[in-house]
């Protein structure tokens, strides 16, 4: 690496200087990408243009299917062949058109001048090659390093990305590392040859919020120090606000607005951008009663509508919007919008400022009411076989997935349950549903102890307890129609007497969740993600439950759809007096929907409080860290916040730390934290915390 840096700076300092002032590092011009599918040609990217300067962080934001990932794969020459192809346009990298290069010339650029970091750290590393082999590979190929040089460089890279015991890590295989570690390795691979540009495609989407903050901080820092330009592709507006210099907003294969981060967040000039901003629940603003949403769905890219593609969903639509082709227009230096009414938006005549969020009802306080769900000292232990166990004795380790969790939920109340992956929040949900047998503790539903009920005895009670799952793609049986899926519980519990009655009930349920009766005939794959989640909700409602466990019900959905589903859940709650256990990892989502919030860490409750108390005045250092780590979609707020990423990884639940499980990552831990398990203490009205120092 050193060789390359030296030669580069020695031979062409003048060239580089002039080149950098004249041309941007990367210029994408009128790029078109098409995909052949069995159901027609999809115009995945339809004439986008943008530039990236040296050392700059550019974000491409948009919802799934808008073409943001496809356009970056096209830049890299990595479109899946033969289905995908670039039909038009140029991609100029330092003045050379990448699309005109031969496969071999393009290969030389990949990994050396431009590298890419992918979304899924779990699957993006080769399982049968060691970490060392994978990091050193580009060094051998592009820089012709010897074994010794490559090894030294690999160690240097691991240090750079914050992996300390590099020697040992190089020998390890991907499955032996955590998700965050793997993403660091991916970044190390991306940095290996000192590229000029790194494209990061949703680099932190699969990671927990505290790990996400670490990784993003690292990438931004490296980009500044090594003067590497960065393209961040993401759907997370908070990430954009914290890290991007400039932002391109994509919708349905077009770039519909671009500008600096401040432009986009503070002075958005396209109705879609405005809608997107408003449909995200925010941690820094008072909670509104309802999320604003963008109604409808993005267009089908096989036959996109004429004119402005957002027009069908746009509240400010004119006839002219669909009659004329729209193009990006500069409205201020460096700030362009594709809306024909952008001038009106600039003038402030068109779009009302976001309604002053009514600091709304404070959470319902139903202390006197008999709780509908009462969980006391719940424990759920799993046995996992240890590797290397003996011949006839198999050694078993115990994972304390849930270790003494207590909470209550009142009728009509929503309890939010937050925590990072592996903290046991989903296990709590499954145990309350009696899908898992509790190891210890008690679960009461409507006053009845259901802890040790067999599934047969649960049958009648199960009507009152339902569940909505995270993944609307895999939780609906693909061989059943929507009508069969929703009708099945009615049939099982003999709540309907005839087929006709069942159909009527299904139609009613569909309408209740904002779908149409005719959708009963469809199969899940014919619906969009948001529609599928609505079907999941309708199925849960079929038995007229009183309590629903919502396990990450919106985390697989796009921002604009997420808002619709959350509004629906709130709506149903107030109409049907439902209680929710709302499990999620997104603090802003939980804040929006919950009356009270419980924070979990490694199987234990860290803190439970009324929503407003918890967010305004968190007592547990873990709650504080979570709130600090969550990015907020406002660049002003983000600039004012010091990066205070929580250090370290979540410890393995196989071998949890002694005393307070959080002490290994806690900034204020003392001796007592290492020795003694903190008791859950009441520190305010309805506010409990498990911390020695709170």
């Amino acid at each position, binding site marked *: 690496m050193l060789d390359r840096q030296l030669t580069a700076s020695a031979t062409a300092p003048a060239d580089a200087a002039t080149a950098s002032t004249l041309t941007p590092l990367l210029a994408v011009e009128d790029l078109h990408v098409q995909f052949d599918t069995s159901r027609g040609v999809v115009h995945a990217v339809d004439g986008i243009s943008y530039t990236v300067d040296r050392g700059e962080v550019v974000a491409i934001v948009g919802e799934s299917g808008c073409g943001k990932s496809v356009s970056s794969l096209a830049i890299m020459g*990595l479109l899946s062949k*033969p289905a995908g192809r670039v039909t038009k346009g140029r991609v100029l990298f330092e003045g050379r058109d990448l699309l005109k290069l031969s496969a071999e010339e393009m*290969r030389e650029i*990949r990994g050396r001048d431009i590298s890419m970091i992918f979304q899924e750290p779990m*699957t*993006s590393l*080769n399982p*049968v090659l060691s970490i060392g082999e994978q990091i050193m590979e580009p060094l051998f*190929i592009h820089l012709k390093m010897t074994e010794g040089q490559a090894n030294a460089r690999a160690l240097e890279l691991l240090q750079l990305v914050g992996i300390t015991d590099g020697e040992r890590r190089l020998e390890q295989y991907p499955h*032996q590392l955590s998700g965050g570690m793997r993403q660091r390795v991916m970044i190390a691979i991306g940095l290996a040859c000192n590229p000029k540009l790194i494209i990061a495609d949703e680099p932190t989407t699969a990671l927990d919020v505290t790990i996400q903050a670490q990784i993003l901080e690292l990438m931004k820092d490296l980009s500044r120090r090594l003067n590497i330009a960065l393209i961040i592709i993401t759907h997370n507006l908070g990430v954009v606000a914290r890290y991007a210099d400039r932002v391109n907003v994509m919708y349905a294969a077009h770039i519909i607005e671009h500008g600096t981060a401040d432009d986009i967040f503070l002075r958005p000039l396209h109705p879609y951008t405005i809608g997107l901003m408003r449909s995200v629940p925010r941690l820094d603003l008072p909670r509104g009663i309802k999320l604003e949403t963008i109604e409808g769905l993005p267009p089908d890219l096989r036959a996109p509508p004429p004119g402005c593609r957002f027009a069908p969903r746009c509240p400010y639509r004119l006839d002219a919007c669909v009659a004329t082709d729209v193009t990006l227009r500069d409205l201020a230096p460096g700030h362009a919008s594709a809306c024909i009414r952008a001038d009106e938006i600039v003038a402030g005549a068109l779009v009302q400022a976001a309604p002053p969020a009514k600091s709304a009802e404070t959470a319902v306080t139903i202390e006197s009411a008999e709780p509908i769900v009462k969980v006391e000292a719940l424990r759920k232990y799993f046995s996992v076989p240890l590797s290397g166990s003996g011949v006839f004795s198999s050694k078993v380790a115990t994972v304390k997935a849930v270790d003494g969790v207590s909470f209550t939920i009142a009728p009509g109340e929503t309890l939010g349950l937050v925590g990072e992956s592996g903290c046991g929040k989903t296990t709590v949900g499954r145990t309350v549903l009696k899908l898992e047998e509790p190891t210890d503790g008690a679960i009461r539903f409507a006053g009845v102890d259901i802890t040790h009920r067999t599934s047969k005895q649960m049958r009648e009670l199960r009507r009152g307890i339902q569940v909505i799952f995270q993944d609307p793609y895999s939780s609906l049986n693909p061989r059943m129609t929507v009508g069969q899926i929703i009708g099945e519980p009615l049939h099982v519990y003999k709540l309907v007497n005839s087929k006709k009655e069942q159909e009527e009930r299904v139609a009613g349920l569909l309408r209740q969740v904002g779908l149409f009766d005719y959708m009963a005939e469809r199969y899940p794959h014919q619906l969009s993600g948001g529609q599928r989640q609505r079907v999941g909700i309708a199925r849960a409602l079929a038995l007229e439950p009183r309590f629903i466990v919502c396990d990450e019900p919106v985390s697989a959905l796009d921002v604009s759809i997420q808002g619709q589903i959350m509004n629906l859940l709130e709506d149903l709650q107030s109409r049907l007096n439902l209680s929710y256990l709302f499990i999620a990892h997104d603090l802003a989502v939980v804040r929006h929907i919950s009356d009270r919030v419980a924070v979990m860490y490694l199987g234990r409750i860290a803190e439970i409080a009324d929503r407003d108390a918890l967010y305004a005045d968190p007592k547990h250092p873990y709650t504080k860290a979570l709130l600090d780590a969550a990015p907020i979609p406002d660049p002003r707020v983000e600039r004012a916040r010091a990066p205070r990423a929580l250090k370290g990884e979540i410890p393995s639940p196989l071998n949890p730390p002694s005393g307070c499980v959080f002490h290994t990552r806690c900034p204020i831990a003392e001796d007592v934290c290492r020795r003694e398990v903190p008791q859950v203490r009441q520190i305010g009205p309805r506010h409990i915390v498990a911390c020695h120092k709170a």
Partner: protein
Amino acid sequence: MLRYTLHRLLQMIPTLIGVAVLVFFMLRVIPGDVVEVKLRGDGGTVSQEVIEQERKRLGLDKPLIYQFADYMYGLATLDLGISMWTERPVTEEISLRLEISLQVAIMATIFAVMLAIPLGTTAALMRGTWVDYVVRIVTIGGLSIPSFWFGMLIMMGLLYFWNWLPPITFTPIYVDPVANLTQLIWPAMAVGYRYCAVVARMIRSSLLEVLNEDYIRTARAKGVFEKVVISRHALRNALLPAITVIGMEFAFLIGGLVVTEQVFNLNGIGKLFVQSVARSDFTLIQGMVMMLAVFYVFVNLVVDLLYAVFDPRIRYG
């Protein structure tokens, strides 16, 4: 690894005991025994007295439980006994035939694997082109054509084009390699076609799957040469499921080639199997079943160990 191997070897014991019990009692359920077949033949008349005498000599008059204990004791001391028909040791009878069957199986495996890897890989890489279609047609042929019939075609072809037939007497390879190979290469090809087809299709589909994996995209994004992407990143992962298929097919070839052995007039395990069942030669059948069971379990173990060699997730699981 050693510990694991030992563990697995010990786990073989209950499996083998189960097989032993099953084969012993299932044979006893079949009406008739070796004495009747031997003495009465096709409708000859022999006095009941002679039959009883012969039964007594072979120990078939003893109570079933006694015979069973005797048999299990023999197994425990690795003594398979003597054949009730030829009255030579079972191990001797088997080892004669095993030499042929094992050689055919090994040759077929080499033939199949050497052909299947390039065929499967090319088909996957050229998916949807005429090359892919040719490979798919050829391999579906391999799956649908019975190997004995393909063997007959080979023989007819040799006769028709060269007016020559392979030798029909077996010469061990260490005596005369040329004579040995000219005889055994044809049956190896006949069964190898099917074998190759199964493996090639497996490699094609698993390679197609692997090529869609995220880590292949990562490798390309690193600027790895396409050749290396295929050989180092993709094939190493794609071969894993093929190893299982290769192991299972190999184990099947020992003892599974009943008809093909007839076509090529090979005195292999399959032929011996049919013979000894027709003769109700209990000891020999039991010995062969046990041998095959050991073989199957052993091949399985080798497959699992190979997995561990190729896949670190199993090595350090």
